[in-house]
């Protein structure tokens, strides 16, 4: 009953009122109620006229108390003194509505994927309506390991097919999901090869450098200038990486490929890079790479060596967003200062993810690589 309408007065101003008298009738949504008086006195002034609707608690009239009558206790101000009832804490429901278009994922699968560093985008669900379940995440993690490091003890043929499947899965996903664009530019390697020959002459054979380390160091340093290429695409968002771990594509005897990471390639000296590269290649071929080296290259370099093609246009390894490729070192006629001369060159290519970068930024990267290779002594 939040409001009431005054129906009629039983007393007039000036009438005496005694305890227990009914002085008025009020109508509420539920019933008519008689207003009783609890003290003796005289009705002074009527404040609410018949027919008027007023909220509960509105004074209806003023009464002059007889001498000696006690003032009635005022009604409590709302429920000031009443302790507010603390509602029992409701467990916070985990909203987590899956973004539409993405395959439904069981909570346990999501949790396992987080633990095993599996990018859910790389997982295909086998549950009802394509729901991803734990077994799918386990399979993806297994495949991810297979792509990275075939376990030596596995039977070669079996290992081979499993590896091929894993590479196929990764490449299929790369082709299907990553909007590639490719750029190429021919880099004059004259300064670099001259400096290298001179440098190696001074170094004992065990310390000699291969041209590949120059390319790796140049690439790593160039990534500092175009950082969005040194990133991963996870859960529909680009995640930039502070450190530069360049993955080196290493072909394995009898086919197969791994791309373990050279950690902080941008900060290593050429000598260290050379030593680490040799170690990486030997362990990759022996199948004893550490899992940490497997799962965290931030960008990958592929080089086909002296026997390879002039240029390589590769596919990016998800979840990375870029791949640098270097063709074989070969001589090419170039016009320098108006004269045509023969120069040692390498065709550098960039495959990049159009969700993250565009041609303009890609070109800046290749230009940086080329520029850095003109001053090999600074690498």
């Amino acid at each position, binding site marked *: 009953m939040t409001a009431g309408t005054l129906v009629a007065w039983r007393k007039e101003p000036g009438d005496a009122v005694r305890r227990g008298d009914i002085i008025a009738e009020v109508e509420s949504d539920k019933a008519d109620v008689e207003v009783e008086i609890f003290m003796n006195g005289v009705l002074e002034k009527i404040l609410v006229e018949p027919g008027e609707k007023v909220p509960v608690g509105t004074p209806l009239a003023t009464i002059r108390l007889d001498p000696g009558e006690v003032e009635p206790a005022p009604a409590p101000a709302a429920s000031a003194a009443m302790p507010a009832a603390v509602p029992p804490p409701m467990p916070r429901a985990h909203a987590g509505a899956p973004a539409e278009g993405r395959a439904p994922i069981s909570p346990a699968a999501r949790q396992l994927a987080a633990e095993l560093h599996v990018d859910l985008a790389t997982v295909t669900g086998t549950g009802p309506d394509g729901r991803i379940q734990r077994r799918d995440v386990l399979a993806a993690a297994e495949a991810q390991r297979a792509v990275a490091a075939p376990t030596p003890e596995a039977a070669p043929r079996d290992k081979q097919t499993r590896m091929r499947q894993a590479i196929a899965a990764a490449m299929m996903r790369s082709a299907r999901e990553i909007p590639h664009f490719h750029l190429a530019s021919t880099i004059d390697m004259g300064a670099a090869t001259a400096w290298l020959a001179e440098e190696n*002459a001074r170094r*004992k*054979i*065990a310390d000699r450098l291969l041209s590949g380390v120059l390319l790796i160091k140049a690439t790593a340093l160039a990534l500092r200038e175009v950082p969005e290429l040194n990133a991963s695409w996870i859960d529909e968002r680009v995640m930039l990486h502070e450190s530069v771990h360049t993955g080196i594509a290493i072909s394995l*005897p009898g086919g197969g490929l791994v791309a373990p990471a050279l950690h902080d390639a941008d900060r290593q000296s050429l000598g260290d890079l050379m030593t680490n590269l*040799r170690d990486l290649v030997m362990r990759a071929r022996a199948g004893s790479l550490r899992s940490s080296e497997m799962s965290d290259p931030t960008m990958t370099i592929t080089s086909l060596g*002296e*026997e390879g093609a002039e240029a390589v246009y590769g596919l990016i390894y998800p979840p990375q967003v870029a791949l640098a490729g270097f063709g074989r070192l070969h001589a090419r006629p170039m016009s320098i200062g108006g004269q045509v001369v023969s120069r040692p060159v390498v065709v550098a290519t960039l495959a990049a993810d159009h969700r993250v970068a565009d041609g303009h930024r890609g070109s800046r990267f290749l230009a940086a690589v080329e520029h850095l290779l003109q001053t090999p002594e600074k690498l």
Partner: protein
Amino acid sequence: MNNDEIREVVLRLLSQVAPEADMAVIKPDVRLRDQIDIDSMDALNFLISIDAELHVEIAEADYPKLTTLDNIVAYLAGKLTVDG
């Protein structure tokens, strides 16, 4: 060390960098890189192992002379007799 011993060492070291290759079928006078799958890294590791075992310092400039089994053995034989 006579030529046969040098050849035997060369083949052993070669098999370390190319374990899957079958040394028995290597033709001595054909470019090694056309017979087995080795890249510049493997080649470098091979030369480093030769230096470690035979203490023969091979200059980068001599790389082009070392393309087949025969000319590798000949080159080393020449080096070894000179350095004794």
